[in-house]
């Protein structure tokens, strides 16, 4: 059941939040072992929050737009009284969080019910959620394949129908990659739109937070609730609440990204873009200048900033890191300053070129991932006749976009033949602060049937 339907039923007094939360807790207990999406289920908290919602309804108070909607968050968000793991064994030694993260507070204020914390790549440094400490997250569409990452648990929980809305983070593609591989909707808002207070940092210069959902209405419901002014996040550029609408897409000028975004992937990634372009009658192809340089800049900034954040632990206890991330962090601590500073200046120059495209276009369409979800454990993959490492290449289309903070909705594309009938998505990319246009286009694509979240066969059989 969608978040919008649950909230409407509870607000109207037709269902009780307590019943909804019990049904979801039972479902998670019965099915999550297949997906390994949850690392912590906060049942007591969820029951207390559901009871508060039911009490508000009974007393005639407004229980909020997300009244009684079960939600869960990537385990890098602070949940009061819970240790924030950020996917790391090392963090098990940390004290429990003293307060909820800002966005968790926003969800709660809107009436949502927190069910727990979700699996991820260690310290968000990965695209696969093959976590050595907490186990790999399994794709609900094929349990032998990855869910993507680093917000893999967030995407798998929504795709499997365990909860209708989750939160994740996206530094280089960590919302958009798992959205694509799990066949759901994900939003990476403009850099600086949503407060990051109480979310474990990875790369402050590039970190974004955002929601996942199975339909556009739920994604909008979550996003509208998450907006709020927070003077404690110095990176937030507060513009006031700008609620998004879902009506009207005829005025939007659509461009199809070419060049870097038409190479480096498998046929299904480009077929997904073609299907959306065809559905919209969009024929203008345009190159995003220096996208490969933008990706390289993000790559270097990520290595350096991410490693520096963890330098004390890299010095003292490198053996406690996930073998999948450890060497990347160690290498990142050693980069010449010239490489990193050059990357930060190239990034600004690249942004200027990219922003010029939006004089001509409102929304740019690009692949979200270069292929469908690979099997868990796969190291290499063939692309354009070359064997390349499968994991870092998953971010080839997302990294150039988050590098300059543009808002993106990852949209699951319908009706495209793919290997194993696995889902795949596209990126709907907007100018800074143009989330509203992305939502209008996403809703249009959903209405005309070009994009929708497929039902996993394994979980609803």
């Amino acid at each position, binding site marked *: 059941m969608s978040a919008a339907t649950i909230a409407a039923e509870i607000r109207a007094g037709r269902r009780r939040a307590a019943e909804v939360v019990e049904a979801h807790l039972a479902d998670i207990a019965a099915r999550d072992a297949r997906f390994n999406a949850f690392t912590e289920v906060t049942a007591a908290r969820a029951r207390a929050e559901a009871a508060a919602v039911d009490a508000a309804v009974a007393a005639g108070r407004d229980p909020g737009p997300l009244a009684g909607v079960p939600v869960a968050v990537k385990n890098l968000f602070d949940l009061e009284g819970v240790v924030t793991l950020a996917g790391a064994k090392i963090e098990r030694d940390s004290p429990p969080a003293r307060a909820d993260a800002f966005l968790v507070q926003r969800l709660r204020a809107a009436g949502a019910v927190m069910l727990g914390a979700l699996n991820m790549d260690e310290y968000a440094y990965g695209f696969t959620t093959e976590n050595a400490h907490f186990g790999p997250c399994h794709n609900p569409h094929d349990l032998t394949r990855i869910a993507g990452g680093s917000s893999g648990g967030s995407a798998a929980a929504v795709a499997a129908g365990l909860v209708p809305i989750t939160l994740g983070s996206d530094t280089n593609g960590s919302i958009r990659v798992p959205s694509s591989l799990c066949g759901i909707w994900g939003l990476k808002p403009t850099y600086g739109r949503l407060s990051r207070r109480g979310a474990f940092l990875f790369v402050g210069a590039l970190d974004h937070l955002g929601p996942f959902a199975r339909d556009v209405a739920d994604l909008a419901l979550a996003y509208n609730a998450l907006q709020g002014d927070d003077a404690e996040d110095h990176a937030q550029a507060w513009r006031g609440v700008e609620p998004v609408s879902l009506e009207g897409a005829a005025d939007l000028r659509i461009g199809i990204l070419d060049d870097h975004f038409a190479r480096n992937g498998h046929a299904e990634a480009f077929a997904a873009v073609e299907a959306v372009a065809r559905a919209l009658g969009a024929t203008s192809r345009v190159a995003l200048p220096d996208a490969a340089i933008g990706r390289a800049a993000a790559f270097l900034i990520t290595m350096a900033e991410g490693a520096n954040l963890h330098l004390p632990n890299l010095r003292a206890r490198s053996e406690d890191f996930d073998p999948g991330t450890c060497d990347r962090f*160690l290498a990142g601590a050693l980069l010449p300053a010239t490489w990193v500073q050059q990357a*930060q200046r190239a990034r600004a120059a690249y942004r200027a070129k990219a922003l010029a495209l939006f004089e001509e276009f409102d929304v740019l369409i690009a692949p979200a991932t270069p292929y469908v979800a690979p099997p868990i454990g796969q190291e290499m993959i063939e692309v354009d006749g070359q064997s390349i490492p499968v994991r870092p290449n998953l971010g080839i289309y997302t990294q150039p976009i988050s590098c300059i903070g543009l808002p993106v909705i990852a949209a699951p594309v319908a009706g495209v033949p793919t290997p194993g009938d696995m889902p795949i998505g596209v990126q709907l990319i907007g100018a800074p602060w143009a989330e509203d246009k992305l939502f209008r286009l996403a809703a249009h694509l959903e209405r005309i049937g070009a994009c929708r979240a497929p039902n996993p066969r394994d979980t609803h059989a």
Partner: protein
Amino acid sequence: MPEFDPEAYARQAAAAVGLPLHEKHLPGVVMNLTLAARMAALVAQMPLTPADEAAPVFTAGRTPPK
């Protein structure tokens, strides 16, 4: 100019920043530094002038202190 030697560099840079580098991590670190060097070469292709400021901009505070 001599070619970049990621292994020799890794050992020296690790010493410079006080990072113990166990032998078992060396192949992975070398692979990642080699990849980073390729990325740095790409970034170096962007023409920049002294007027090109770095992307992050420091703010002294969003609001005056209470």
